[in-house]
């Protein structure tokens, strides 16, 4: 019995069978594990390598290649501020400092209670809401002192 619950194993098997070729579901399965566990651990990689019949070094390559997948656990809420050109022109650096101050952590770190983790991200395709603020892959609109503090309260 692996360290996943039966229901979780079912979902992962769902991803394996979802696409015409089994291996095409690997990235989605990794995203799923990242969502559950906030990171992709060694055991997860071993399990997925067996499930997709794919060498473990390539699975580990994927986890270290894609920024969406992390080795160390991120917070329940993964907050990101875009540092692309349009957002930089609109002052994303100032917003990053404000976010770091209000969360009390540096960019790339996770709050001790594991609720928030903050990182500066490359362009997230929201240059009309510069500087863009995103939480768990969901766009929250432009970042400003007011919207940041309001966001941190709102999230349970």
């Amino acid at each position, binding site marked *: 019995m692996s360290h996943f619950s039966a229901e979780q194993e079912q979902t992962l098997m769902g991803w394996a069978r*979802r*696409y*015409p*070729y089994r*291996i*095409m*579901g*690997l*990235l*989605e399965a*990794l*995203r799923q594990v990242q969502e559950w566990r906030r990171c992709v651990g060694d055991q997860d990689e071993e399990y997925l390598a067996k499930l*997709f019949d*794919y060498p473990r070094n*390539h699975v580990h*390559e*994927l986890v270290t*290649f*894609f*920024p*969406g*997948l992390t080795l160390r656990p991120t917070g329940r809420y993964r907050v990101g501020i875009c*540092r*692309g*050109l*349009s957002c*930089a*022109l609109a002052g994303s650096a100032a917003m990053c400092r404000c976010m770091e101050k209000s969360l009390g952590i540096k960019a790339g770190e996770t709050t001790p209670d594991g609720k928030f983790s903050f990182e500066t*991200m*490359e*362009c*997230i*395709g*929201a*240059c*009309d809401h*510069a500087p863009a603020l*995103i939480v*768990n*892959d*969901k*766009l929250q609109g432009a970042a400003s002192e007011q919207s940041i503090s309001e966001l941190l309260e709102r999230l349970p």
Partner: protein
Amino acid sequence: MTKVLTEHWDQPRLHELETYRRLGGYEALKKVLGMDRAQLIDEAKKSNLRGLGGAGFATSLKWSTVTPEEKNPGPRYVVVNCDESEPGCFKDRVLATRNPHQLIEGLLIAACAIDAKQNFIFIRGEYQIQYEILEKALAEARGAGIIKPPVSIDLMRGAGAYMSGLDTALLETMEGKKAWPRQPPPFPTASGLMGRPTVVNNVETLCMVPSIVLRGGEWFAKLGTAKSGGTALFSVSGHVEKPGVYEFAMGTPLREILAAAGGVKGGRKLKAVIPGGVSTPVLTADELDTPMDWDGPRAQGSFLGAGGVIVLDETTDMVMVAHNIERFLAHESCGQCTPCRQGSYWYVRILERALDGGGVAADLDTLRRTGEDMTGKVICALGDTVGLVTRAMMKKFSNDFKAKFHGEPPHG
């Protein structure tokens, strides 16, 4: 100005099926089922529609070069590239949010054009909202019998790599591998996803297809200029009053687009405009009358790209812009080939040192020479961009760069 994509954007709940149908949606699909493939491809050829993801490759040519069933029996695929990660471009996000069914209809027509049964929409991980919208739209379409087996459309998400936006790297990502682009030959139309012939089309390109089928290729071609048919979406951002997505006919001068977006923010003087996203070399303020089609910016040493217009006012320091772009490219470089992997981070270090005041006159020659050694000598367009973008800025804004690169080398 006739609008092709944004025609119904003012309609409420356009993303729902019956609104879309009420406004004439899926008529083109019925018409296509009656046409044969050659006629459909010929219609696209007459329309002069070219890939709006940035490459500008004629869509009809791409469809017609797909190896037919007889030569290579087995499945064919159409993959929608919705991995829009180019800083300055957000039109695919707005399109998928406002009018997902237009994309689905275009995709189904493209599938008929190359006789593909299974199709995929590859969307970037950060577009989770658009993912859910598309999922609902697909469910509606399946429910209404528009998508009937054996035809199927599947959604797949990326995980935050800009490289996945390149067509061959996108196919590598879908095959569960790192987004390391392939080196054609063979091209994806001959051997793409899992070795099967695949067509990779951009969201905007496919959204144009229903109108082309309904109102005919000539109508679409006449909207644009001789070589660039139809209209295009421009994502205007940066120092501009009203950033957003605007639709203009191909060939519209940049000045008009800037005016539609409310001109430079705070009425300041314009310094530069990046026409097609950060990967396209910059245009100066007096090159504002460049017609925005596939050949206009090329005359000024730039290119249309994905239409991400970034407006820069006079307060911007071009070295800071160059550093921001090069740091983006160095962070997103997939690391497969050496010139881009090492050269991009070398650029970042030189520009960072220049911003901190350590710039040395000899660095300008290093940037120029290294840029030439990169462009054209790498596997994919990112490496070319690293070498191209900064050099263009150095040529057009040499005083910004001379100001930062003035010191003498400390030792010898």
